[in-house]
């Protein structure tokens, strides 16, 4: 099951490379994407890039939470931001602007089977480090954090100074674009022939002489940057029907713009560098789809994760619930604007029917449904039907801190409130925040980190409350909180969103804490410093 889910997510994320496949199945010959027996998916991709396309992809996980990804490829909005034909992109493999907040990225890696701390050697060939090291991309994401905004650029076969100069021009252009990025720091690294054993010929078959990677961290407010990125998308298609606030107000969201000035170079590099290692479905698929794609391509993606929308007893899922739409969902006109695709992935849930259904322009199997939206025209909604579900009752869990911004040494009350927002009673409820003391063994905790409740009626709420006294400054992470409960004999687990408690240091508290922690040595050191100061002042006066 994971394989299917993984495939869907990957297909979307590589930038609409799924579209040729989907459209070759779904679409009749048309003025934009011409299908025929002599034309396979690989031939269609260049045309699709030429015409432009948009996709809404929604995945509903086993807890009934939707993750929505909206993307555009080769449409005027995202293409115009980069100006990919400019000289500053000569030698550039890729440029990307990425803003992530909350759990979306983590969710996507989980979706692809690459997340979590238990990730071992998976389909993508990531091997766990020895001695309990970072095991895979999921762990890397964990350590990247869940809120960052960066500009990344990669140049190939250029002098270091030339690459840096061109990247600086790109960043300057992006700063002056509607993105209005503001750079706070720069990281760069160069891999040249001296780092490749045997020179560039040993990089997997390609003759690369150098690679320059640039990472610019951005200081823009996260919400503003996500809005700016989404704001560059071409309007008029299905994006208009989406609730734009969700891109910044949902529990987790992200937005990215990716510019590929010479996609053939990138494909060649990926292809050649994968020659000497095990083949993976993902890499194989990308390479197989891309060889005929030439020239610059720009992709824009925005997405968010929402709270649970599908619960026990439901037999349908509405796209409008996931994307916050209240009106008609209007796709692009394929004849003039580009293609629009809708995809819904229900995971392990078997779909029994979809609306609208058109044998030529829609398709569903097991947990997946596709619509060639441009061919179907405006719709009030896209709906998938299913019979039996294992979705849990609608249970909400919220963690709060009081006070929200404490100072060092002051007690903080942590409350996890669990509400049964469904229509059935749940039982054997256990609320747990037990990982807190594993992460911070020195944190002083008053009260139990686990609470048990026999049952919870519809509409009722219960809570777990404890007090912590943070003696150190910084942001305390509250990870992996869980609510487990039983409904109709089956056990369910609901994740409580990770949260950070920022403990503000007052200089005096910090000073006194540091002195008391190191006493009596701190006293001796301070005494010596004081004596030195007195000595110097006396010397100054005497001179």
């Amino acid at each position: 099951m994971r394989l299917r889910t993984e495939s869907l997510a990957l297909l979307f994320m590589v930038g609409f490379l799924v579209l040729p496949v989907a459209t070759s199945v779904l679409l009749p010959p048309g003025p934009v994407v011409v299908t025929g027996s002599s034309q396979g998916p690989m031939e269609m991709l260049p045309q699709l890039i030429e015409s432009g396309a948009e996709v809404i992809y929604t995945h509903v996980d086993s807890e009934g939470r939707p993750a929505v990804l909206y993307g555009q490829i080769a449409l005027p909005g995202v293409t115009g931001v980069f100006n990919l034909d400019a000289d500053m992109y000569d030698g550039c493999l890729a440029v990307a602007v990425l803003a992530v907040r909350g759990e979306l990225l983590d969710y996507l890696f989980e979706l692809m089977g690459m997340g979590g701390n238990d990730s071992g050697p998976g389909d993508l060939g990531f091997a766990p480090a020895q001695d309990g090291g970072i095991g895979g991309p999921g762990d890397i994401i964990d350590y990247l954090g869940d809120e960052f905004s960066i500009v990344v650029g990669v140049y190939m076969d250029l002098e270091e100074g030339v690459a840096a100069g061109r990247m600086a021009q790109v960043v300057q252009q992006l700063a002056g674009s509607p993105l209005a990025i503001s750079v706070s720091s720069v990281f760069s690294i160069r891999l040249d022939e001296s780092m490749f054993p045997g020179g560039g010929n040993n990089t997997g078959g390609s003759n690369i002489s150098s690679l320059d990677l640039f990472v610019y961290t951005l200081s823009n407010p996260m919400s503003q940057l996500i809005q700016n990125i989404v704001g560059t998308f071409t309007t008029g298609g299905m994006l208009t029907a989406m609730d734009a606030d969700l891109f910044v107000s949902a529990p987790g969201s992200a937005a990215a713009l990716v510019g590929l000035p010479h996609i053939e170079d990138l494909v060649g590099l990926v292809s050649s560098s994968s020659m000497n290692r095990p083949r993976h479905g993902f890499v194989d698929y990308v390479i197989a789809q891309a060889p005929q794609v030439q020239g610059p391509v720009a992709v824009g993606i925005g997405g968010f994760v929402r709270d649970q929308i599908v619960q026990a007893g439901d037999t349908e899922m509405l796209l409008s619930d996931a994307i916050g739409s209240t009106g008609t969902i209007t796709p692009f006109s394929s004849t003039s604007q580009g293609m629009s695709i809708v995809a819904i992935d229900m995971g392990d849930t078997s779909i029994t029917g979809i609306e609208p259904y058109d044998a030529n322009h829609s398709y569903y199997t097991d947990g997946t449904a596709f619509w060639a939206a441009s061919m179907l025209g405006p719709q009030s909604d896209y709906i998938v039907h299913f019979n039996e579900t294992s979705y849990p009752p609608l249970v909400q869990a919220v963690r709060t801190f009081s006070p929200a911004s404490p100072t060092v040494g002051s007690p903080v009350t942590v409350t996890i409130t669990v509400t049964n927002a469904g229509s059935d009673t749940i039982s054997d409820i256990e609320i747990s925040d037990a990982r807190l003391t594993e992460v911070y063994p020195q944190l002083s905790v008053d009260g139990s980190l686990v609470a048990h409740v026999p049952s919870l009626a519809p509409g009722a709420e219960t809570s777990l409350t404890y007090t912590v006294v943070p003696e150190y400054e910084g942001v305390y992470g509250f990870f992996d909180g869980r609510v487990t409960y039983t409904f109709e004999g089956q056990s369910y687990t609901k994740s409580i969103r990770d949260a950070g408690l920022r403990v503000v240091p007052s200089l005096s508290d910090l000073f006194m804490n540091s002195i008391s922690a190191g006493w009596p040595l701190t006293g001796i050191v301070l005494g010596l410093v004081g004596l030195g100061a007195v000595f110097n002042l006396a010397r100054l006066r005497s001179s």
Partner: protein
Amino acid sequence: MCLLIVLAGGWYLLPPGYETIVEWLGPFIGNYLRPSLVLVNLLFVHPLASIMFVALWAGAGFVGGVIAGTKKGAVVVGISTWLSCLLILAFCAWQIMQSGVDLSGIPPPPPGVSVTDILGLPIAQFLVTTVVTMMAGGGGGPPPMEEALPSLLMGIAPFLLTPIVTVCVAAVLGAVVRPRE
């Protein structure tokens, strides 16, 4: 006075990357983390990428030199300031070790904190570049310590020498500008 200027400037001008480390690891390591990082930031200065801290050392050295009034005294002031910072850093590091922190249990960054900010620090860039270079040259695996250490020391020497050279030169200048009568 020279030490006071350096410490105060270092404390209040701590770059965002170090602030991120404090936010991430402060609750895990303790309150000695910030002073440790302040001193690391003061003692490892990239001569080109950290102009502000070169200026801080220069300013402090100049004031120290003016107070000292002689070239010899100025050099002593500069060296003693730098050594004091080194000693305080050693003290902070020792305090951290005494707290019994198990570095194998470093937590992931909490929500709202990202290590990408740390990449912007010159010292982080140097360390990442050095490690990647060594790993690339060694066929992808970690390099042996006997090979890694000399490279690291050679690379880090400019970072380490910049403050002491700056403070001493500036102190001598201060002493020349206002010699003791």
